[in-house]
């Protein structure tokens, strides 16, 4: 059982507080989606949870252990973070790119051992890239690159996986594929937190959803509870329409065009 917890956290960048008084707890086995308008602080929250950004007030703790009392290496062995806008563009092979994920376990100077290579192989297997291990990353499609990023995080063998916008630039098939994998990882006992832009994807795949808006986490709960027109309109400051999907039974969220708003 793993629990990642932010307690009364405020954070931001010099001269600008982005998040204030955030309380959030994520536990083993769940896929938590972070939603919210652009610039509301989803990425900032993920960076906080990954010990990449030091809170001004409050603390982030993994199983009760405050992250800032531990080394970045200690954290990297337990928490992996991926940014979809930072996919590797260097001419290295898939294997080399993913092997970097072993550094927190093996150290930075020693050569990799058999168990490290196994972990890399497993990670490649899990994202379906095992046949592409020796291919240059630069030759891969956008979807495959996204999977390389995920594989590196998995090679860290983390207990917590934080993913920022895993579906940007991906077509429908890859969106579904990557979210299926994240869900599978959560079911396998990992804590998974994903910042998602697409509310419908969040409705379909997330176990719980947190709204990051107006400088804090304004609501956390199961999709049914969170995806209401009132909450979303307050967060996004635009009219939205929430309906139920006729086949899947999940909630669907669509923005409302200005020309059709009169009837509401």
């Amino acid at each position, binding site marked *: 059982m793993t629990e990642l917890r932010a307690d009364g956290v405020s954070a931001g960048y010099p001269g600008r507080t982005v998040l204030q008084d955030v309380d959030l707890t994520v536990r083993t086995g769940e896929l938590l989606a972070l939603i919210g308008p652009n610039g509301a602080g989803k990425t900032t929250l993920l960076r906080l949870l*990954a010990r990449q950004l030091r809170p001004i007030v409050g603390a982030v703790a993994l199983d009760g252990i405050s992250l800032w009392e531990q080394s970045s290496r200690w954290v*990297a062995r337990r928490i992996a973070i991926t940014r979809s806008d930072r996919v590797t563009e260097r001419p290295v*092979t898939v294997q*080399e790119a993913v092997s*970097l994920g072993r*550094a927190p376990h093996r150290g930075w100077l020693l050569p990799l051992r058999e168990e490290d290579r196994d972990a890399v192989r497993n990670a490649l297997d899990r994202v379906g890239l095992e046949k592409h291990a020796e291919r240059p990353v630069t030759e891969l499609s956008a979807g495959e690159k996204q999977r390389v990023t995920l594989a590196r995080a998995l090679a860290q063998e983390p207990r917590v996986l934080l993913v920022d916008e895993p579906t940007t630039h991906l077509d429908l098939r890859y969106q579904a594929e990557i979210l299926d994998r994240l869900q599978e990882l959560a079911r396998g006992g990992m804590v998974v937190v994903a910042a998602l832009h697409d509310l419908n994807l969040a409705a379909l795949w997330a176990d719980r959803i947190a709204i990051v808006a107006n400088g804090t986490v304004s609501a956390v709960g199961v999709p049914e509870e969170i995806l209401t027109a009132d909450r979303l309109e307050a967060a996004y400051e635009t009219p939205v329409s929430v309906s139920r999907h006729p086949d899947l039974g999940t909630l669907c969220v669509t923005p409302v065009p200005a020309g059709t708003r009169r009837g509401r």
Partner: protein
Amino acid sequence: MAATRVKVRRLLILVSLLCSAIITGVVVGAVWIGPADVFHTLFRSEPDEADRVARVIVWDLRLPRVLLAALVGVGLSASGAAYQGLFRNPLAEPFVIGSASGAALGATLAIVNNWSYVPVTLAAFLGAVGAVAITYTCDTVVRSESSAGLLLTGVAVGTLLNALVWVLMTWNDRELARIIGWLMGSLSGRGWADLARIAPWLACGTLGVWLLARPLDALAEGEEAARGLGLPIRTAIGLVIAAASLAAASAVAAAGIIGFVGLIAPHIARRLVGESHAWLIPASGLVGATLMVLADTAARTLTAPTELPVGVITAALGGPFFLYLISRRGV
């Protein structure tokens, strides 16, 4: 980039190219001494006068110089590869954070004060190391906290040191020829003693850079990614700079400021083995060594009996070659 097996094969090809270049460098010169004669100077039991002359030319003059050229090439290229990775900038080269300006200032001071040859080497080395130390300290003081900031600090420090060099040159115009000769880079007259003085430092720096291959891989992915992998960023940057600067400083101390090799060799190597630094650094070293040996051979034979500064050769060949690489989208 390519599969592991292919990379091993390419490294072996680079090794054999370097060996060929070294043999060429020993054989070619103002006097042609064929490979068979080189062999004879070593093993003939009763050497005649011609053998003895050949022996001096080969073993006392050419071989140490060729080996030193190779080492300088290794140091400059390993250092260049490390800085390109660290700064995520294809235009980074060994002198990017001020070591060339520092070395120039050290050497100029030594020449102006008319110290003998040894202190010029030593002064250049200390100048290079000192300049990097100043850059690094300034950067820590202004707390740029990122390698991009460090790069800019290096430019600032380098500019300042260059200004001092120009001042010294203006005040001491009688020594101009010697100063400029040193600034252009040359291996003229170097022997075993120079090789022995430089080799340990250069080896430490180069091996250090190679040992830091994985931190370099992480840094090349961007600092945020590196931090996410648990890399202690400041320490890693500090160690990379220390190792890369040691390699560059010893190369500069031995041969003066030789441009382009440290910039180009990593680009050639990257096309052969990709950018994983565990491969890139040895490959860059081999390419750089081969280029330097060939350039120095050209420097002492093209206009024999006078010599061209080897830095002129590397720049003259390097510029067009770099354009070719760019046109092939190799950069």
